[in-house]
């Protein structure tokens, strides 16, 4: 296994001290198998301790280390350095798109959380039924179980939000991530929250803004069919509009 040296071209910006963002270049010795996250860790430990990025589990489960690498939003821990080098043997690393900068590779996720809260992301119980006293037998049809299960896989990494062109043009759009979370509950037969959620989903900045470019589906590191979920929400909102879903 041969070591080699590559250059990390990293977007740096500290709003307190820098007038504008700049590129910093760091030589990093890499081994085959090293992910981009490892390179960033080494820079932070050996060259500049103030380099800011988020990371936790380093195995693609927590979804903290999403960033734009070689032009695309991806998880740094699941991206091999040797797979993303450009002709100059550089790894180009930038913060996620569509969110404002906090520092270096860290973006402000507040807009995402606000939108996420707007879709009432919790199970709305049937107000008329009493909670069972013993174990509830639950046999979801396999397809419904799969739908919920897939949508539950979301790791809140913001990659779909960063890759969505509609989010890029209209910051008010709910965005794929909040929508797929809404779908996770809408697809759950135990949930009774459609009337509440329709207030957010069934309007200009809700499901109808989606232009089905499939960027979200293509970029999702967990392979969630996000666009498909949004389309299902659109169909559901149609029935709500027709007065069959509890109505808004």
């Amino acid at each position, binding site marked *: 296994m041969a070591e080699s040296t590559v250059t990390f071209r990293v977007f740096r910006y500290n709003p307190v001290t820098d007038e504008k963002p700049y590129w910093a270049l760091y030589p990093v010795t890499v081994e085959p198998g090293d992910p981009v996250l490892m390179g960033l860790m080494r820079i932070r430990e050996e060259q500049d301790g103030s380099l800011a990025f988020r990371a936790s589990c380093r195995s693609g489960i927590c979804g903290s280390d999403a960033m734009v690498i070689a032009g695309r939003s991806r998880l740094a821990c699941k991206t091999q350095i040797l797979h993303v080098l450009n002709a100059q043997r550089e790894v180009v690393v930038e913060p996620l798109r569509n969110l404002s900068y906090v520092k270096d590779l860290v973006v402000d996720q507040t807009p995402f959380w606000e939108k996420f809260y707007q879709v009432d992301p*919790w199970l709305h119980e049937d107000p008329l039924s009493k909670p069972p006293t013993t174990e509830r037998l639950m046999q979801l049809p396999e397809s419904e179980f799969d739908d919920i299960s897939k949508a539950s896989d979301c790791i809140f990494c913001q990659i779909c939000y960063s890759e969505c062109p509609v989010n890029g043009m209209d910051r008010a759009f709910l965005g794929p991530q909040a929508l797929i979370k809404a779908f996770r509950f809408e697809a759950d037969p135990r949930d009774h929250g459609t009337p509440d959620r329709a207030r957010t989903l069934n309007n200009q900045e809700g499901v109808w803004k989606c232009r089905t470019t499939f960027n979200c589906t293509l970029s999702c590191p967990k392979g969630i069919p996000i666009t498909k979920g949004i389309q299902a929400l659109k169909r559901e909102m149609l029935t709500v509009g027709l007065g069959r879903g509890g109505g808004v």
Partner: protein
Amino acid sequence: MSTQFATLESHTFDVLVIGSGGAGLRAAVQAAVPGVSVGIIGKSLLGKAHTVMAEGGVAASFGNVDRWDGWETHFYDTMRSGHFINDYRIAEIFAHEAPERVLELEEWGAVFDRTPEGKIMQRPFGAHSFRRLAHIGDRTGMELLRTLQYKAISQDIEIFQEVTVTKLLKDAAGRMAGALAYYRSTGEFVLFRTKAIVLATGGWGKIYKVTSNSWESTGDGGALAYRAGAEMMDMEMVQFHPTGMVWPPGVRGLLVTEGVRGEGGFLYNSEGERFMLRYDPERKELSSRDVVARSIYKEVQAGRGTPHGGAWLDITHKGPEFIKRKLPGMYEQYLTLADVDITKEKFEVAPTCHYTMGGVRAEAETCATNIPGLFAAGEVACGLHGANRLGGNSLADLLVYGKRAGEGALAYSQSIAEVPTIDPQEIEAEMERVMAPFSITHGENPFLIHEELQDIMSNHAGIMRSGPDLEEGLAKIQALTERSANMGITGSRVYNPGWHAVFDVQSMLALAALIFRGALARKESRGAHWRTDYPDELPEMGQWNFVQSVDAGIKEVPVPQMPEELARLFERGMAPGVWKSQQEGKEN
């Protein structure tokens, strides 16, 4: 008074929860009844906590698959695997309440795999007498954390993300009164005033070089509590899982599931010898975790380790189709994280630090600690697991005791009329301390201090321990602690990882010393604690827990003795449910 203090942002809650993982969220959900204000602080973003890493499942004795299972057997398994230094009352409540807590989670929206009858599915796991782990695929921890996250959002709970607490604050009477913290994004201070605090900050696996833990697991909560005067128990008990990834460095320590060996994988040393045949001819690769971990360790020590200090794990003989079907997660993990195709190549594994059994001593009914107003739950707390934790018991732990800690803190807060007063001078002094690293130029690099700490722990307090080694390690930790006073950083307060690392390192150094002291005091081998100079488990030592505090140093405290009706469960030398199943077998 400084301007910093005059402009200090401040929040007041009835109950403050520190830690936004499973235990913290469960506590917050419980405490947030109408009229009671609850805040929850997380060091990272909501939903990133180490709880998401739990794969196997949550242990609860429903008996959905094996009908003989029941709380007595879960209790029996937990005490036995803990080598009987667990607090029996904590384990008893735990075994009783785990099923209720799991069902409740389902009411809140969690999805579990089902049996054909539609009941919650349960899978087998090491040292559980029956198939007991409720699960959804291999992402049970994530489902659990998400469900609690959603539940918390639906309630009136104020959530603070990316906030680091640097000190727990008490009033003149010694009661919990608040916490000083700073926002990681801006570096600005924030003061929390409160009647009660639930500590749910997880463990300290990052103290070791090779660990399955997330970067957050730096023991902040343990150190905060210890400095505030809390009692710390069983600190010597650190669990090592036999198979973690070794190479490349970026993935070192990540868990390699037991399933690889379960599905037929073999372990080899550098000489190509299948060494488990020598250490345990009967169970071979599927021997118990501590035995496999020690065997790999011994091979490396004897100079028969792999290039990066582990053993080879090889499953290529099973063929690509079999491997991809039976171990899809592992196949993908190695392919995407390490660029290794395990259907074609053998790969390196080595023991990895997985869990810290020791922690803040908390009482069974309410999770109260010795500090009035401080409650502890989850991995930061101590008492349930004894000398060894069972797989699946940590998720059940954070549900059962997260709830109890929330209840305990709620009741305590309601017994107090006013939020206790904090001395402003103490706050000012703490702000000065936290800012100090900025004024040290050319100081020690916190990241490098952390690396040295990890080396010391791995070499002196790892899987294999001995008196002289521990003494030497403790001396090194003390020297490193002195050097760490000179940690300096560059840059501004805005999202400065170097600055954040300073406090992580301080926490880990404090806990490292406690691990050494506990390990020196326990002159025997028991569960995860293996001493070559005392290789046997000694009944005399089994009577004691070692409790450490700033005020009283280290002392022996008797392990609580079970009442007769519980002790009777162990008389047959087999789990109650197993005995029942055998009786039934005889009758038929």
